[in-house]
């Protein structure tokens, strides 16, 4: 009995907006708010119509699949040209930049195209990778972990890099000296804790990590854990609440 009544109630609240009201809302409310309103409508539809729900589930699965597909390994290239070329190809394909030892930085142009000149550097190890803003996830990291002489790795603002990924970086412990995790939305102090494997690390950037609960304290603890490493970002006083007398 309860379900139909709730349905009526919700339906009436939606009807009450009417077309005029919705237009009025869109003029006054900030984009964030209107997005939420659209969200509520979608939610209402998904709650009451199986096909809407199924469609939304399908779209979500499609999104996930897209990320997975972007992160698949290029086994063919790896077999034919070795791990360095495969790793570099992967990063360039994702829109990042690569530096072979003794060479210039390489990067794709604005339209995602890049020259395949680097295929001749089969024996030259990759020493730096800048994967800022790439959609690398746990699986995609396979390609980077094969680069055994990697010294500098930048994973700035990577939306799919999380604590699980950081726990795999111990495979690069022999060479990695610089690591930047600035702006990764899913990295928290739990993942930072397993960077203790990287004893050669000289520079670590952990600024602007929204998932870290106590940035100041975390920075101190990371510095304790990696005594030879310069830790950037997250001022030690960040996250502390100012007392009332200091605020005034």
């Amino acid at each position, binding site marked *: 009995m309860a379900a139909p009544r709730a349905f009526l109630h919700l339906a009436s609240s939606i009807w009450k907006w009417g077309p005029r009201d919705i237009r009025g809302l869109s003029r006054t409310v900030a984009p964030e708010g209107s997005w939420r309103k659209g969200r509520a409508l979608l939610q209402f539809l998904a709650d009451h119509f199986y096909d809407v729900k199924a469609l939304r589930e399908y779209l979500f699965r499609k999104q996930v699949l897209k990320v997975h597909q972007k992160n698949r390994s290029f086994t063919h290239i790896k077999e034919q040209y070795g791990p360095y070329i495969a790793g570099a190809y992967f990063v360039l394909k994702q829109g990042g930049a690569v530096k072979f030892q003794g060479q210039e930085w390489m990067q794709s142009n604005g339209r995602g195209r890049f020259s395949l000149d680097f295929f001749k550097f089969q024996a030259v190890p990759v020493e730096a990778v800048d994967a800022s803003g790439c959609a690398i996830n746990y699986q995609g990291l396979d390609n980077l972990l094969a680069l055994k002489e990697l010294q500098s790795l930048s994973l700035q603002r990577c939306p799919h890099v999380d604590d699980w990924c950081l*726990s795999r970086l*111990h495979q690069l412990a022999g060479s990695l000296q610089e690591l930047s995790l600035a702006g990764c939305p899913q990295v928290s*102090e739990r993942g930072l804790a397993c960077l203790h494997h990287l004893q050669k690390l000289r520079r670590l950037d952990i600024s602007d990590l929204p998932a870290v609960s106590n940035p100041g304290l975390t920075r101190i603890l990371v510095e*304790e854990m990696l005594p030879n490493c310069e830790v950037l970002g997250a001022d030690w006083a960040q996250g502390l609440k100012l007392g009332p007398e200091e605020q005034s």
Partner: protein
Amino acid sequence: MLRRALRLGVGRCPLGRGLGTRRGGSTLDWDGKVSDIKKKIQSVLPGGAWNPLYDTSHLPPEHSDVVIVGGGVLGLSVAYWLKRLEKRRGAIQVLVVDRDYTYSHASTVLSVGGIRQQFSLPENIQLSLFSVDFLRNINEYLAVVDDPPLDLQFNPLGYLLLASEKGAAIMENNVKVQRQEGAKVCLMSPEQLRNKFPWINTEGVALASYGLENEGWFDPWCLLQGLRRKVQSMGVRFCHGEVTRFISSSDRMETASGEEVTLKRIHEVHVKMDRSLEYQPVECAIVINAAGAWSGQIAELAGIGKGPPGTLQGTKLPVEPRKRYVYLWHCPQGPGLETPFVTDTSGTYFRREGLGNNYLGGCSPTELSPQEEEPDPGNLEVDHDFFQDKVWPHLAQRVPAFESLKVRSAWAGYYDYNTFDQNGVVGPHPLVVNMYFATGFSGHGLQQAPAVGRAVAEMVLEGHFQTINLSPFLFSRFYLGEKVEERNII
């Protein structure tokens, strides 16, 4: 006529369906009339199960294909995989019955939440590897449209197991098996251990094994709530009640060798509602026993173990509740951010909790003194002397910084302890043909739940294990006397 009958019925409405609550005495005659009228209405009105006089929305459905006893993480995981592996959407009706939806006594939420691959049995390692994959992709498996993503709070810091001289050889063998199965585990000498973790006292340690990936601890509550949310969105029904009785039929059959066996089949499950005498018989095809520490009682209700000892009929499900303590202490000078989940040679374990130098830990009583000092599992009271006498000395010996610590709080939880060989029971019972088990994991049920749920669902739907072969964990091993034991390193 009909209207009068309806009014009469409505007048006696509070009587409800609670046949048990019916008062005897002077109203006997009246009762007879009411049931007469009810029958008449039922024959007149269309639709068999439709009963307009009483509100039965609080009762479980009268039919359900699968009834899962126990709404902990194992039961929910079985429900999830049943719904996910079904061929057509809505093909299977699943009902989860649990008597404690606050989870105040559930082993799931009272556990420490660790996950490791450092077992000695290949099956356990495979289960754990599958589960870790599930947990890593939890937001893809358990995604619900419009609900926020789950934050599992996974700490990927690994397990550090320490072995004494005696256990070193076993540990080496175990690590070999673990590596074969694909776990990332490394061995460390006391020297390496001292370099890596300077706060450890390596006295009496001959070898250590350390998990590099996929090991650590997570928030059990998050997994439980995620499963519950997803399963609910998939159409599984929940019921707050207790299973009090199984109605079953039995068939006498003869084996090829002329022995007589009695096969039982459960047809109905009586679900007693919480805090009332009202009960609802639920017709079902399959019962899954995932009642954790209390699954032994559920098995007994189904008649398992009621027979002459030494026969298959007389073989009980050897699962019983065991009380285990967990202590939370504060130690300002304690080990830092890199602290893994340490398990000492004595069986004492601890892990870091949060950033404020707090630590969680405890010790399993049996590993210290077998048989003698098992605490009374009747309540969940904590024995603080146990920490003073049994846990702290070992802790302080292993980590000198723990000499000065302060216990902040403590709690107790139940293990679904398998007294036979401390491993899980999975799959159907050989005689009660439609009761399936997912229980008895003796402390590692939480970390293996996603994989076990899948195995049981495959057994129910396909009749055999597909992803991971768990046939060593079948019930028949109790009768055959084949122990499947973890080889501990202590």
